[in-house]
């Protein structure tokens, strides 16, 4: 795969195009955010500030629809996922650049980050013991299935994004090679939509997994409270 081609090496580590593109995305997002948020006005926001506020509020409200009471806590993680995956998906449309999410290493890394964050937020929400206990409920027999589900959904998360983006890039390349310069334009429009949809799906699934981990603790605590309350 071309995505695995090493551009340069730092010691024993070969830096691939994927990593370089990711750095570029990080640079653009970081510098852009810094420039855009240097002089935020409370009273009369400019167009860029209004757009930024709109994006942040849209992300926050999307999170609030799933987990209303924790939207501010999850906003940085889920928002960063959405922004990064969307830009990483779309950047493949720029000639000469490769979408980092078309590399399984990136999607696997993101899936692992989501996997770890689910546990991080779950343990942070209810404590380690209470969080681990939910794997044994409603019955310890279901523990292997819970564990299998954790890994399978992480794997699905990584492979889904990788497969969609890689196939989109490949299809666009084939159409460009076969049909000429202007014909792939509709395909590229489809690419934009698909890239945004995949970013939304990835972020929303991550959000649902995290919310599931946090809410299962809450439900367990609620059930325990009810049992204690009903006990004479």
């Amino acid at each position, binding site marked *: *795969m071309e995505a*695995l081609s090493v551009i340069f090496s730092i010691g024993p*580590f*070969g*830096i*691939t195009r*994927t*990593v370089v593109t*990711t*750095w570029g*995305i*990080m640079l653009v*997002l*970081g510098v852009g*955010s*810094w420039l*855009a*948020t240097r002089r*935020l*006005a*409370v*009273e009369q*926001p400019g167009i860029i*500030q209004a757009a*930024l*506020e709109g994006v*942040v*509020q849209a992300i926050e409200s999307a999170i609030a629809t799933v987990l209303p009471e924790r939207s*501010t806590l999850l*906003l*940085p*993680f889920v*928002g*960063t996922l959405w*922004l*990064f995956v969307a830009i990483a998906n779309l950047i493949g449309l720029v000639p000469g650049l490769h979408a*980092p999410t078309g*590399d*399984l*290493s*990136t999607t*696997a*890394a*993101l899936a*692992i*980050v989501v996997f770890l964050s689910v546990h991080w937020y779950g343990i942070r929400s209810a404590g380690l013991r209470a969080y681990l206990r939910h794997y044994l409920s409603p019955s310890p027999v279901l523990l292997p299935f819970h564990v299998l589900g954790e890994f399978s959904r992480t794997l699905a998360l990584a492979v889904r994004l990788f497969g969609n983006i890689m196939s989109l890039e490949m299809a666009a390349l084939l159409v460009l090679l076969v049909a000429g310069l202007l014909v792939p334009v509709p395909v590229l429009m489809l690419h934009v939509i698909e890239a945004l949809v995949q970013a939304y799906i990835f972020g929303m699934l991550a959000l649902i997994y995290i919310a599931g981990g946090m809410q299962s603790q809450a439900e367990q605590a609620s059930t325990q409270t009810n049992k204690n309350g009903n006990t004479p």
Partner: protein
Amino acid sequence: MNIDWTTFGLEIVNFLALLWILKRFLYKPVLETLAQRRAGIDKTLSEAREGEIKAQGLQAQYESRLADWGKERAKARSELDTEIALERSRQMQSLAKELAEERARNAAVDAHWQQEMQREMETAALLQAQQFATKLLGRLASPTLESRMVDLLLEDWAKLPDQQISGLRAAAEDPALAVRVSSAFPLDEVQRGRIIEALNHRLGRPVEVLFEELPGLLAGLRISVGAWQLHLNFTDELASFAAGANHVDG
């Protein structure tokens, strides 16, 4: 489908770094700005609510004050009406009193005027009666009538009360006293003698008697004894009648 573990690890680090960068330079400032704006909006809303509450309080206070003013106005109006009624009653009483006094004054003036008119009319009537009687008696006057009146005078002289006679006697004590007898017609000697005898008898001593004629007496006599006068003639009787009538009226 190969995984480059270096890329895998770097991508994890990259994502975490990007998470920190965006959290530091995007989410935090934007959320703070939104929070400040919400705080400003909340503050404005709070101030608006406070203003509304204050306005409602002021409105209630204003309405209460208006109600108080209304009560005070009604009370003042009632007091003013009472005061006006009292003042009106007082002035009406004063006016009625003045009118009564004016009526009484006018009634007194009218009564006085009527009395004056009546007196003037009576005076005029008496004067006319005197003039009429003077003319009538002037035509009736004659020596015979006068002789009869001399008889009557002498009868009256003889019947004068002792009190008057004593006064006449006191006046007649003056040696220089001369008794004057005036008559409308000339008296004969007999009549003069009877008169002198009667005077001397009642005055208690002989007195000088002077006889004179006064046609103005119409008929009858007038006897003057010092300051005293005895008369029985038409002129003096009519004058006494008129003077007596005036004296009675006055």
